[in-house]
């Protein structure tokens, strides 16, 4: 997963922020997906304009002291999980 990768929602998927993190709705199911990402990822990240590097930086800045490598690893694992569920795809693929 490249740091310059950006992601967008898969066709038929919507997302919004909730207290616990992100709530995805896939109307092809329809099915709800509850992703407990707390406040680390905003819905706007899935507009295809914000890169993984940008997200990593913003999380580190907002949580001063969190090691960049750890944050990066968490983001990568989280995005892989979301891609695996068919909820998002990398910008070049969308």
């Amino acid at each position, binding site marked *: 997963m490249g740091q310059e990768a950006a992601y967008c929602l898969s066709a038929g998927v*919507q997302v*919004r*922020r*909730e*207290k*616990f993190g992100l*709530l995805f*709705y896939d*109307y092809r199911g*329809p099915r*709800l997906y*509850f992703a*407990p990402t707390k406040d680390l990822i905003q819905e706007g990240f899935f507009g295809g304009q914000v890169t993984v590097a940008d997200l990593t930086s913003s999380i580190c800045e907002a949580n001063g002291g969190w090691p960049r490598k750890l944050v990066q690893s968490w983001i990568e694992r989280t995005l892989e999980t979301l891609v695996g569920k068919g909820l998002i795809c990398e910008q070049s693929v969308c």
Partner: protein
Amino acid sequence: MSNPYVDLGLSAPVNVSWEVTFACNLSCLHCVSDSGRKRNGELTTEECRRMIDTLASMKVFQVNIGGGEPFLRKDFLDLMDYAHQKGIVTCISTNGTLIDDQIAGRLDNGLVYLQVSLDGARAETNDAIRGEGSFRSALRALECLSKRGLGVSINTVLTRLSFPELDQLEGLADSFGAKFRVSRFRPSGRGKANWSELSVSKEDLLLFSEWLSRHQQVSTGDSFFSVSHEDRKSLGLNMCGACKLTCCVSPLGEVYPCAFLQEKEFLAGKLPQDSLQFIWEKAPVFHSFRELEIRSCESCLRFDFCHGGCPAMAYHTQRKLGLPDPECLANCVTRLPVTAWRHETGDHCGPGSSGN
């Protein structure tokens, strides 16, 4: 509730049922909203647009639209365009009488699903409930919509008349490339007066439960969890979603927990005076509903599958919330003689079978 995130409370409904008018050109015997003539005080075009704005700002994912007959509203297609511009997915329930190629063309935008109501696989059955000619109109609509590749489903209300024809109805849906949904009949609206005539027996409910297990691709609008077997648990909600995942807006802008509880005591607020956001977050009716527990069901082995069933059924049959759904699987089984419960003997049961 079995979902910890829903228990935490969502910021907005996931979907909203919106009845856009009382006007209808049919007089179905089971009509939830007792539709017929447009009523004074129905939301104006501008009020509807403001409501759509609110739904968009709350990020409600889907609006399920019914009535009455939605296409009788002169501004309906413009309202749909407006909702779609806001990115809201709509599922429109229609009797199909007014669907033509021009209307189908207006709806061909990827954000619309259409549900055509059909209560029998034969004109004789369907029209006995929906009125003469309604079967023919529905089929014409299905033809029109499926020709364009629009997402379509057939919705059938489970009644004594439709039950024996479920297999044929599913076949009819297949022939149009449509999904098939069976909805639960409840004694509200006009359905109250026709309940004893149309409701299915407990024996047939058991058979229906088995039929659902054999037809996993059939949806139920999350309305039959009280009689669904474990093998359908992952196919839909196993509890009432009212005030937790959904709510209902009437043609007059009245907001209720669900379409089957459009009674004064459940009125949570009224648009446009009250905002839907405020009602969702603060209405005492909604708070009470979220805390509703069917205590007498908690010791039941099936509690995890149904959480006490449909509160609206309990209310309409026993005039009280907080009581068990009278049509739950456990109730159906325990109130019948053992010989009537065929599931465990492995006998084939289902609509159209000799056991029916």
